[in-house]
């Protein structure tokens, strides 16, 4: 099994290299003078020249690349123009917020999509099958930022059951002691139930908006995979052996059907990490997405670059985890290597 994990790790290496090269190129492909970008819109020619030497932008491209790698290994992602703070620390502070949101959305999406897909496949032609089809078709058409706004309007303004879309916590509550940075986990661990519920209420709408978006591909894949498995030879054998329907559907069919769904998770994460940016903007959620969007508006370049790199590295790591999970679950992969 160790060999399988190591071989998975090996396939992640080219992706890592690609990511680093592309993010490097993105900073050098700027139309005009990169130094001017990093110096900011209001910089004087002298300030630009200073930045150029300071960031090593006057050196040859290969030398710059080596310096870039060195910077990355030291965790140096430059500094933000507007706040003056190192990008690395700002991203580190904001990462748990994005993480909590994405994780909550994922759990919600998986928790709804998989049962929906399974039921739609098992009870073909019934209302639940039609519901699944509607969810799948409509879900991919909904712009996530629009759904978020719609929810905010409906549940906050009209129905007044949701809190104002202004971040992770109501102004009257203070954040729990920092253990993981995830407000729900931290407040639960420290027994601070008022904060827990407050954080949950703020998390609900953004997480649901994101979940709806990723529900569609998961439900579709689950339904398709389940249908395909239910028509296979070994299910016929299971039925011919008179196994109980529940055994046939769950122990035999579902476990096989879930394998391609795990592979779909990679694509789902690509959606989620992108949707993150939009949802954070709508709900003023203080994660790295909002950080990048604000930096974009003020033409503050280093944070945007740091954001893209962080997201990409996160994505590579997630894909690696999915690959390993698949390798562990499918004995044909686990034992063959």
């Amino acid at each position, binding site marked *: 099994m160790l060999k399988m994990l190591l071989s998975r790790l090996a396939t992640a290496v080219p*992706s890592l290299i690609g990511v680093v090269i592309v993010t490097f190129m993105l900073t050098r492909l700027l139309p005009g003078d990169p130094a001017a970008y990093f110096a900011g819109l209001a910089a004087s020619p002298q300030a630009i020249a200073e930045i150029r030497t300071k960031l090593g932008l006057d050196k040859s491209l290969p030398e710059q690349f080596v310096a870039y790698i060195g910077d990355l290994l030291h965790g140096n992602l430059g500094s933000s123009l507007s706040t003056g703070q190192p990008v690395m620390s700002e991203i580190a502070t904001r990462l748990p917020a994005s993480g909590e949101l994405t994780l909550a959305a994922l759990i919600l999406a998986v928790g709804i999509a998989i049962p929906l897909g399974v039921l739609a496949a098992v009870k073909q032609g019934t209302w639940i099958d039609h519901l699944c089809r509607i969810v799948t078709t409509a879900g991919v058409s909904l*712009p996530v930022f629009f759904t978020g706004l719609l929810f905010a309007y409906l549940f906050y303004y009209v129905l007044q059951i949701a809190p104002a879309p202004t971040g992770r916590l109501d102004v009257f509550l203070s954040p729990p002691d920092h253990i993981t940075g995830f407000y729900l986990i931290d407040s639960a661990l420290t027994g601070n139930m008022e904060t827990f519920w407050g954080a949950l209420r703020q998390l609900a709408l953004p997480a649901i908006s994101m979940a709806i978006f990723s529900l569609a591909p998961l439900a579709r894949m689950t339904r*398709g995979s389940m249908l395909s498995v239910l028509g296979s030879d070994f299910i016929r054998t299971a039925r011919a052996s008179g196994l109980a329907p529940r055994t046939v559907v769950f122990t035999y069919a579902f476990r096989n059907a879930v394998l391609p769904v795990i592979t779909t998770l990679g694509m789902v994460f690509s959606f989620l990490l992108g949707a993150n*940016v939009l949802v954070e903007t709508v709900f003023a959620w203080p994660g790295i997405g909002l950080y990048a969007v604000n930096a974009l508006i003020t033409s503050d370049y280093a944070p945007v670059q740091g*954001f893209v790199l962080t997201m990409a590295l996160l994505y590579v790591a997630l894909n690696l985890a999915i690959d390993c999970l698949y390798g562990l679950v499918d004995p044909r992969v686990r034992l063959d290597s």
Partner: protein
Amino acid sequence: MIPLLRHARYVLSENPVTGLAFGLFALFLIAGVFGPVLAPYNPLQSNAAMALKPPSAAHWFGTDQLGRDIFSRVLVATRLDLSIAFASVVLAFMLGALSGVAAGYFGGWTDRVVGRLADTIMAFPLFVLAMGIVAALGNEVINIVIATAIINFPLYARVARAEANVRRDAGFIEAARLSGNGEARVVLGHVLPNIMPIMMVQMSLTMGYAILNAAGLSFIGLGVRPPDAEWGIMVAEGANFIQSGEWWIALFPGAALMLAVFCFNLLGDGLRDIIDPRQRT
């Protein structure tokens, strides 16, 4: 051609929803081409006195914070949104189909390079990569097109590669080779035209995604700038007024967006059923 049309009619009769999609598509096409002519008001004309008015007989979709008629703006925005999406899909197709066909047909180094390129793009969350590209190339509409095309490139390359691979040893390709055509001619003149139907399906299916992508980028301030009328940027402007209850500013452009994406998704499904029903899920 006739058998194809007959098959198309069969599919449409089986699946009326596809017919609906074609109808919607026609509407969007009309809005896109004739929008500026059909708009009742000048989409850029501000009128402070009429600001923030809800939908009424005079202004079907209400007015925004500058008193502009939202219906006119939504109508006119159709052209911009659809052209951006269409341009990026065509660009992605050109780059992707050519490299994909070359990779599938020639194999070897071409295959490896194209594969590596596609894998590197796919190593990023796609929307994030698009953000990075637009930030790097500059905040212009053309760069939205380029960024969207780049993130759609791997999909086209992969489909084209698979199709070219299958056709590489097909009879008609052998025949083309044997009649003395150079490799380039075979690829461009024979393989590429033959995979066009499947690529059309792909293009239609990704149009919806391209529209969402472009709107998402403009929502966060990239690409289209005020006072241009574009659905994403209109939703962004309307977002500021949701909390005070002026829902119409964001709703109508958002609904138009949804409808357009929905229409193209259904269209793509319908086209796929007509051209290659085996792919149905």
